[in-house]
């Protein structure tokens, strides 16, 4: 699990210099900035995009536009627009009038629409205010599942990919304040998505009153809806498919560092809205995680295929959902098999002065077992960690090899236990079942580090365990056990 430091965060300076400039060629950027060309390229790769009804390149074409041939609902957007500017969605046509209804209920007459298209053609919304083309395209009908979390507009999913690996993802949910658009700056909600599971984690909402732009507040429910719903823990449908589409887009566009915006259409399934050669950095806020360390992890990796890329992304960057659970419940998530550090017994260099030298530690596999109360340590691991003499000492005691009942074992402990536990490293004796027989074994005090926590605990030395260390339930207070995953 990764903790964020300042060095993990990607800023605009580094994004531009280390990722956009070297990995996104001028030609690839030109393609991404041109929605018509992007659509063509993606279509060749079998990736669905909203259907284009009309392309208007000149005022002459606009003059002869057959308005009757347009469906009731459609979208007008500038071909080279940025940041969602100039995009107008129409939900339907007003009965008996040459006017269309917008998501906020406002009516736009044919004359208004013509004027808007003329503004697009004049370059009002395009990069560098250059002359542009207006696109009239299909309106995506929101999938009913995601529709319940957004106000009127179409929620989309942004996936950032780098070097053929999905790095980070978020969903943008339109709100009343954002006027039904999925634009974060106008008030849409951004919700982080765990790359490995496709489950939503943190949700952020830009503060409208903040003087400094891009200041977010954390929220846990939708806003402005009749019944506001919890935003964390939502499973994004077809998650693996969405990751595959994002990586296909990267391959097709030849952008090394890309942001792919995907919407889920009620009828068509996932459709790509656009590919972005300069994706914003707000995704870090939505995920409460830095992009930089993730990008550095996959830099230079040899990714053999899309499936391989997804596997890498899931293995490296999955787990935000665990962090989210930790932050909500205050409990840490440990795997059923977890790697832990076991600290060796401190060695004393100068016995007269009792000067301790460094305490070594070793990484070992452990099994989390709620079926046993006290933790168990294998004889071999206990010897390695500095308790060899205990094993020798216990062997020479010639204790009975087994006891018929636990009561007998307890009686033996009551009678002889005090003498045996005279050894400075033996805390007490424990009666356990080993190889199907009731036996007595010494308990020692060891120190371990599990999931970032240092702990001192009692452990029974035994041989009858599948892992060098079995952590018992007395040490598991405050942890949630993830039974689905093994060693990462």
């Amino acid at each position, binding site marked *: 699990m990764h903790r964020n430091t300042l060095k993990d*965060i990607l800023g605009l300076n580094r994004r531009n210099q280390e990722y956009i400039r070297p990995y996104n060629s001028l030609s690839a950027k030109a393609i991404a900035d041109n929605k018509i060309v992007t659509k063509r390229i993606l279509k060749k790769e079998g990736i669905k995009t909203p259907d284009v009804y009309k392309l208007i390149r000149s005022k002459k074409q606009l003059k002869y536009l057959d308005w009757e041939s347009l469906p009731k609902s459609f979208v007008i957007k500038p071909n080279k627009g940025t940041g969602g500017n100039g995009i107008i969605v129409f939900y339907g046509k007003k009965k008996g009038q040459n006017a269309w209804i917008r998501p906020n209920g406002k009516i736009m007459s044919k004359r208004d629409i013509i004027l808007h298209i003329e503004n697009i053609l004049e370059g*009002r919304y395009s990069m560098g*205010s250059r002359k542009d083309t207006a696109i009239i395209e299909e309106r995506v009908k929101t999938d009913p599942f995601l529709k319940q979390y957004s106000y009127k507009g179409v929620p989309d999913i942004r996936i950032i990919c780098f070097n053929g690996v999905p790095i980070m993802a978020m969903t943008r949910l339109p709100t009343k304040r954002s006027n039904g658009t999925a634009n974060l700056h106008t008030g849409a909600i951004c919700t982080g998505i765990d790359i490995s599971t496709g489950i939503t984690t943190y949700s952020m909402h830009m503060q409208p009153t903040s003087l400094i732009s891009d200041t977010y507040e954390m929220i846990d429910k939708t806003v402005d809806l009749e019944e506001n719903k919890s935003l964390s823990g939502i499973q994004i449908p077809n998650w693996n498919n969405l990751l595959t589409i994002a990586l296909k887009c990267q391959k097709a566009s030849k952008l090394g560092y890309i942001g792919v915006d995907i919407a889920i259409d009620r009828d068509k399934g996932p459709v790509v809205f656009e590919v972005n050669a300069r994706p914003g950095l707000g995704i870090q806020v939505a995920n409460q995680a830095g992009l930089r360390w993730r990008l550095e992890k996959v830099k230079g990796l040899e990714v053999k295929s899309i499936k391989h890329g997804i596997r890498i992304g899931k293995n490296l960057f999955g787990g935000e959902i665990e962090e989210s659970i930790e932050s909500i419940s205050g409990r840490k998530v440990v795997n059923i098999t977890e790697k832990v550090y076991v600290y060796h017994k401190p060695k004393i260099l100068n016995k007269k002065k009792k000067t301790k030298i460094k305490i070594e530690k070793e990484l070992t596999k452990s099994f989390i077992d709620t079926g046993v109360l006290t933790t168990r340590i294998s004889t071999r691991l206990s010897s390695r960690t500095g308790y060899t003499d205990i094993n020798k000492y216990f062997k020479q005691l010639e204790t009975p090899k087994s006891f018929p009942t636990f009561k007998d074992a307890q009686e033996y402990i009551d009678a002889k236990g005090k003498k045996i536990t005279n050894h400075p490293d033996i805390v007490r004796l424990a009666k356990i079942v080993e190889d199907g027989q009731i036996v007595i074994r010494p308990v020692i005090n060891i120190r371990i580090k599990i999931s970032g926590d240092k702990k001192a605990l009692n452990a029974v030395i035994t041989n009858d365990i599948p892992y060098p260390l079995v952590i018992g339930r007395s040490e598991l207070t405050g942890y949630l056990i993830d039974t689905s995953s093994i060693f990462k």
Partner: protein
Amino acid sequence: MEYSPFTTWILGNGVPSQTLELFITIALLATLVSIGRYIFGNKTYGIYAPIILAIAYSYTGLKYGLAITTVVIFSTLLSYSVLRRIRMHYITRIAINYCILILSLTLFLMVIDKYGLTLENMAYIPSLAMISIAALGDFFTKQYVKKSLKTSFLTLFSTIAISALGWFIITRDVISTNLVNNLWIIPVFILINILIGQFKGLRFKDLLRFQSILEEKDNA
């Protein structure tokens, strides 16, 4: 004023002292804009607008300059808010905007002439400086149309802040004399810009923006 030998040599070869002073100021202001942008994350209306505005302020004085700027922005905002309701082409709207702006400035000069409002010397302000400030209206509207009113105001404040700093530097004789007498400073500006150009660290604004990522999530 005594100049260094190198500066004297330049001045003796057809470069007027005022022009040289202005040139070096432009280099300084351009560097200030790039520091503001890449170190602090301060967006301005490009690099040209703050330079022109700083020079204009040096002719008008900061008080008068800011007064004119306020009139320009409010006039632009008002006219654009009204005009956006009327169907017309973008360029014609901007042109009408300019016409209204000129009327507003004329009215403003007349009001100042009549009531003073502590701006009695307004009539002596060079008209070219006033027109340079008026150009700000165009930058403001473009940003307003493409982004939002809030973004446009934030950019405007950043631009004015950089310009005011530029005005301060230009109008301090000690600074400008020192700049003119130490022309080696221009390669230093180039070096600073090369270093800033390679700077990959977080901008001050990034730090504010991503602060929440570094915080503990106990309150989630």
